[in-house]
């Protein structure tokens, strides 16, 4: 039950929501469409579902071209951000809806319907609420009912549009894991939309990162985090400190600072080649003293966050265009304790891992 999207383009008036997007999802995968709001992820999901239609391009489900087909004929289950439960029906009737509207010849008997609905409600652990109305349920319960309702018609594909977007943090966390487990049980090919990178990392087996109507990168959570394909992906998936500079020997010269790093495989790039270094807060080593030529900083702020300590450090030299004003650093609790740092102290930074991007036009010119 694969999903294939070929060169989809969609515009709403002047706004290009999707620009030549292609995507493959294999049988049984759980894929996240991740991106900031307005990036086209929901539009893409609705195209796959058949709730909206493409301007150009094709949608193939399970090897069949369904581009012009109605959602009814696509065998997809759809879960909405705001649940879209039928308020005048009980939980039981909501879940039974898809069975009751089947053609008479295909419709299960009342007994079979009851059995199936109770099975599904058991699956989402809500059978005890079957006689309630949606208005009497919490948000998390409503979304689970919506999921059971979508599953009732045995969809070949499950599409979820920001399924946890309207829930509060604790419920979100719980439901994420629950969705993951549910998917492991059912193996329905699923795509869900989210703007929360943590959610995408935790739930999906593959992440599709989107921005401005285009797909920026497709990969496992590990790949998009550790090997981002573009500056956008690097900064959208997790926090990042950005350094702009030019190669100078074995260093990246940011003007006031020389970072002792050089992009791998850049031997041919001569001095003065502009590069951008994206470094995650946890990819710094902090030293109190050093013999190396490492840039010096002052600790401005220390925030204990539980398992990690978040530090803000300020470069000692006058700010230059290539340097962030404040560098975010995260240290594991144990390392922080060992260093015994205090606000105002002098530290040296050594980057341990860096994402390199060739400086494009969007990067500030070097002074």
């Amino acid at each position, binding site marked *: 039950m694969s999903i294939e999207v070929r060169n989809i383009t969609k515009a709403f008036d002047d706004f290009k929501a999707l620009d030549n997007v292609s995507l493959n999802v294999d049988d049984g995968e759980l894929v996240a469409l991740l991106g900031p709001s307005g990036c086209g992820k929901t539009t893409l999901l609705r195209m796959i*579902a058949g*709730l909206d239609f493409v301007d150009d391009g094709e949608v193939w489900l399970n090897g069949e071209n369904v581009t012009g087909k109605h*959602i009814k004929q696509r065998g997809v289950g759809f879960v909405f951000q705001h649940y*879209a439960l039928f308020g*005048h029906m*009980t939980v039981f009737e909501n879940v039974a*809806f898809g069975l009751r*509207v089947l053609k008479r010849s295909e419709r299960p008997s009342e007994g079979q319907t009851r059995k199936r609905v109770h099975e599904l409600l058991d699956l989402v652990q809500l059978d005890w609420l079957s006689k309630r109305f949606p208005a009497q349920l919490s948000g998390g319960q409503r979304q689970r009912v*919506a999921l059971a*309702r979508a599953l009732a018609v045995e969809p070949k594909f499950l599409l979820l549009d920001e399924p946890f977007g309207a829930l509060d943090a604790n419920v979100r966390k719980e439901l994420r894991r629950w969705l993951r487990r549910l998917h492991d049980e059912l193996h329905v090919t699923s795509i869900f939309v989210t703007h929360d990178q943590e959610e995408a990392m935790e739930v999906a087996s593959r992440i599709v990162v989107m921005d401005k109507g285009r797909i920026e990168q497709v990969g496992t959570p590990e790949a998009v985090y550790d090997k981002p394909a573009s500056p956008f992906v690097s900064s959208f998936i997790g926090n990042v400190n950005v350094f702009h500079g030019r190669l100078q020997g074995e260093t990246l010269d940011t003007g006031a600072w020389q970072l002792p790093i050089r992009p791998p495989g850049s031997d041919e790039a001569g001095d003065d080649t502009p590069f951008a270094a994206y470094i995650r807060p946890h990819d710094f080593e902090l030293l109190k003293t050093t013999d190396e030529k490492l840039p010096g900083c002052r600790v401005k702020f220390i925030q204990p966050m539980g398992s990690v300590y978040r530090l803000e450090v300020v470069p000692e030299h006058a700010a230059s265009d290539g340097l962030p004003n404040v560098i975010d650093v995260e240290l594991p609790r144990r390392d922080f304790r060992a260093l015994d740092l205090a606000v105002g102290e002098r530290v040296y930074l050594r980057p341990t891992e860096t994402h390199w991007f060739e400086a494009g036009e969007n990067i500030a010119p070097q002074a």
Partner: protein
Amino acid sequence: MKRSFSILPGFRLASGITLFYLSLLVLIPLCALVWKTTELSPGELFATLTNGRVLASFRVSILTALAAAFINLFLGFVIAWVLVRYPMPMKRLFDAVIDLPFALPTAVAGIVLAALYAPDGWIGSFFTELGIRIAYTPLGIVVALIFIGLPFVVRTVEPVLQDLDRQLEEAAQSLGATPWTIFRRVLFPPLIPALLTGFALAFARGLGEYGSVIFIAGNMPMVSEIVPLLIITKLEQYDYAGATAIGLMMLVVAFIMLLVINMLQAWTRKRTGKL
């Protein structure tokens, strides 16, 4: 005792004003009505109310008001549906036109309708050819009451329809429902309370309507004479007690019917989980 604080200040003041106003505007006049009726002996009261002409007028008033309310229920729903759901040129204009029956002096409406639907009027002459007489029959009364009651249904249903989540339809579609099933099982049920309210308002207005009806009704005793007209007639004959007796009866009938509709509404609300 635990005190709960409400968001709006001045609850006592507001409820005092409400009670005072309701008493002044509704309860006191109604009490006066009852009190005036006591001038009649039980025998006279019974005689007045069981008079053939009075009973006939009640029948005309209730039946025409019911018929008009039912037609308005259907028409109003269709109009509200179209106004909310379909893009239409000059939608705002149409939307404004809906409220005209509220604003127009009822007598003006009555005269216009009577002229149009009279046997030789623009519309009436067309029906005359078909052998149907509208003006000066109970049918004419129904026409006038439809005109008067239409905005009630449209205006009560419209906002509820507007608030219906588009995604409900999409969800139903994704579950394989046909358009007709979606309408019948998903979109229509949430509208029932609003439809009932609109129906009740249109019916109540129709029951008491006077101005627009008398011009088109023909006012033939036993056939097309409505209760409010009979009350006026009694008053003109200085039969104040008789008039109030009929008025009281009218009040009782209206109250019972509105009560029934309200109970129906409470029942549908409860059934849909709205408390």
